[in-house]
């Protein structure tokens, strides 16, 4: 098991062997956690990876290939399928980039870290069912292109319109937003990570904000490394209303107009990684998120939960 868990982040090891920096100046900081001290390399390295640390000043790139799917919640969209899952991070002493999140740690101590950050708000991704739409933000612009909603002659009364439910093809385009905020990360134990983040739209798309609390626990086993995560996210009225509200901006019958309300969205996820070779691992993820009434009650939304899963092979560069 020690060997297995040592392989959890093979990239880091590969670099670690060639970038053996001598860093006495950081010693005191590290020594603040004497319980980590081990006498064997493998154990130390295994712990390093189990504890989800990263070597600084190194680009960590892992790519998983396989199949994954996120269920659709918006009427008219198909589940979002994906075959490639990247995991890219770069951490400096204080600066960091982690899977689309760009940040700067303003306070770092033994078990706490306080950072400011900015990242893409991915709420718009529910309005696309293609991976390109997810990555490049070309969410459907139905309000401009749809012709099916134009009232025509004698048929054009509200009774007919009411039969056409709001879907991604007949509502206005929802734009992607950029969030910025502050996060506090707390590490009460070796493999435990508690985080609280508050973020606000800075692209003036909806001016809403959200706050997320999460607890994650790593569980190394003989069958691979598991990570269990619980999240609770609050999304404000404005955020929910911008994406899931329906109003005169949307080309649907007024009977479907809906005002989005703030929601609390709990989520649970389980991640599994099983090392195959030095750089190769089997990885799997599953996540379920409850949307909350403020979102689920929207006539645009067809579900009250969204699930994501992925199974693949990851390679560390």
């Amino acid at each position, binding site marked *: 098991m020690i060997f297995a868990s040592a392989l959890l982040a093979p990239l880091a090891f590969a670099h670690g062997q060639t970038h053996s920096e001598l860093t006495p100046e950081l*010693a005191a900081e590290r020594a603040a956690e004497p319980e980590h001290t081990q006498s064997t*390399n493998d154990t130390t*390295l295994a712990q390093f990876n189990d504890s*989800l640390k990263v070597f600084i000043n190194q680009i960590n790139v892992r790519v998983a290939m396989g199949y994954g799917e996120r269920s659709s919640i918006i009427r008219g969209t198909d589940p979002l399928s994906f075959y490639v899952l990247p995991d890219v991070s770069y951490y400096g002493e204080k600066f960091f980039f982690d899977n689309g999140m760009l940040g700067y740690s303003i306070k770092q101590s033994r078990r706490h870290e306080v950072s400011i950050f900015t990242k893409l708000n991915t709420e718009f991704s529910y309005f696309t069912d293609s991976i390109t739409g997810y990555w490049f933000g070309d969410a459907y612009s139905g309000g401009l292109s749809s012709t099916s909603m134009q009232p025509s002659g004698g048929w054009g009364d509200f009774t007919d319109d009411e039969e056409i439910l709001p879907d991604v093809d007949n509502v206005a385009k929802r734009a992607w937003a950029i969030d910025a905020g502050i996060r506090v990360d707390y590490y009460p134990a070796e493999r435990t990570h508690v985080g609280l983040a508050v973020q606000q739209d800075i692209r003036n798309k909806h001016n809403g904000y959200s706050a997320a609390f999460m607890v994650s626990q790593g569980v190394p086993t003989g069958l691979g490394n598991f990570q269990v995560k619980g999240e609770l996210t609050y999304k404000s009225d404005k955020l929910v209303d911008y994406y899931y509200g329906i109003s005169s901006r949307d080309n649907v019958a007024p009977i479907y107009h809906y005002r989005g309300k703030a929601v609390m969205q709990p989520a649970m996820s389980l991640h599994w990684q099983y090392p195959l070779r030095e750089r190769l691992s089997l990885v799997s993820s599953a996540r379920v998120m409850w949307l909350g009434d403020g979102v689920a009650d929207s006539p645009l939304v067809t579900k009250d939960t969204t699930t994501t899963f992925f199974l693949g092979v990851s390679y560390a560069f």
Partner: protein
Amino acid sequence: MRFNYLASLLLLSGVFTFTAPTSAAMQETSSAEPTTLSPDIDEQLLCTEPFCLWVQPQVCVTENAPAVCEETVSVSWRSETPLNACLAFDEKVLTCWRQEEVGTWLGDLTWFGDEILVLFTVEDSELNAAGEWRERPRRTGRNSRQQFLNSVEILASTEMQIQSLFPKARRRLGSPWSVF
């Protein structure tokens, strides 16, 4: 996959000679004999200065991520003239000598990489009957170590160092594979 550099700790030794009761003219040599805990005869013969100090080990090499060294450290000094001196490690006085030309101390120290081992001269009146140093009253606080160093007449000092073979690391803030 594995680090194959060294055993968990490799001890290095440091030898210092001083031409005057200041920390000038410092020479350092090192040897990789972890079992040697006091200066050997050859090294002692090499000391031709008015004052010499040996600290072994002075640097430890560790592969562990939280770099901490816990070692039995040997401190020896020799002077042409008798001295009143005390040895302190990171503000804590370990032992004192009254009118001695040689001194040795052997004990366990734990260091995190920036602690200073300092030998400082004291007045006769500052040592009590038991030979212990009566520390001058001083404020304690953020810079208490610096205050301590400023308050004593330093004969020789050396930083207890750690060289870690482990690259710098920090906790990952984001979740792996969290693109969705």
